[in-house]
């Protein structure tokens, strides 16, 4: 129930800004990453979810996906424990323009179907 309320609320408030989205990420290059969380860096100006993504050959690549700042996420109902090390997640996001293994996450989906950290600075570019 709390999760639902948080999701509903994030629809209205799920935008934030620290820097220009478009300076760093390519909104036209989407990526869906499925992997295991290795670390959640719950710090300003953006949280980062680090995850190990395994390809068909079994090669593992570490990605870092940026989210909102803790103060904005807290107001939307999320906490530093909403995603934990070892969680299996699927992240939809936009990839970094410089080719590094970084993404700006639009949604982080947990294995049980819950969506966390909804909202992306990309929403700001639509204004």
């Amino acid at each position, binding site marked *: 129930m709390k999760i639902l309320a948080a999701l509903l609320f994030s629809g209205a408030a799920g935008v*934030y800004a620290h*820097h220009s989205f478009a300076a760093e990420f390519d909104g036209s290059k989407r990526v869906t990453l499925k992997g295991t969380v290795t670390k959640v860096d719950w*710090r300003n*100006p953006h949280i*980062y979810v680090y995850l190990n993504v395994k390809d068909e050959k079994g090669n593992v690549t570490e990605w870092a996906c940026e989210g909102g700042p803790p*103060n904005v996420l*807290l107001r939307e109902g999320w906490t530093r424990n909403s995603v934990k090390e070892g969680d299996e997640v699927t992240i939809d996001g936009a990839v970094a323009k410089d080719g590094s293994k970084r993404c700006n996450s639009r949604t982080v989906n947990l294995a049980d179907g819950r969506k966390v950290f909804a909202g992306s600075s990309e929403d*700001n570019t639509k204004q």
Partner: protein
Amino acid sequence: MELVRVITSAIVFRALILVYVLAPAAPAQWLHYPHKDTPRTPDGKPDLTAPAPRRPDGKPDMSGVWIGSTKYMINIAADLKEVPFQPWAAAEYKRRRDTESKDDPSGQCLPLSVPVKQTITSPFKIVDVPQKEEMIMLYEGQRHREIFMDGRPLPRDPEPSWYGYSTGRWEGDDLVIESNGFNGIPWLDINGHPSTDALHLTERYHRVDFGHMSLEITIDDPKAYTKPWTVKESPRLLPDTELLEAVCENNQDPAHMVGK
């Protein structure tokens, strides 16, 4: 006797640990804390359309945690048909847009401009101290502003600063804040409208009711714009909460901000 005391202490200590372990997670800071001054509807929810509170002297009480609208944080001139740029400012704005705002100083964790502070997704808090003839504007994140209500003039030839120097006065029920002495470094919005050390900023706040206020921001910067221009926005109250901490300590973005 001593043994009983030791055993009792041990029991109390274990009980405390148990309480600590079993207690629901303590709320982060005072993210949700019902305030005794919040008017409520019969079902106990904050009544955001209740009348605006007033100070003992009859002036509106502007106190509270307020948040602006992202529309103006991104483009402070969103409602203007045409921005009266000076030629160099038009060229600089175009350059900032063409490079996707990659040079925004706030991307380096430098302070935001006052107009962005009043419109960003992080709230501001007004603390009214009438007995000291001063209002304090606190921000989630960094810095604060002091608004002197004692009739003093704005400084002449001030030392340029990020947040400027502010005085306030009442015009009827409107709180009017005038500021000067800015350093011209922070952008007026994320899109990159520029300003200079000639910026004279006027903010006019009007508390409509308990949960809503109107805010007019007038940009008067003759070095960057050919005439003053005004933006109207509507900050809303965040009831039953307090400001959170937000220190820009882990900024990984600048190394990856390539623009176009």
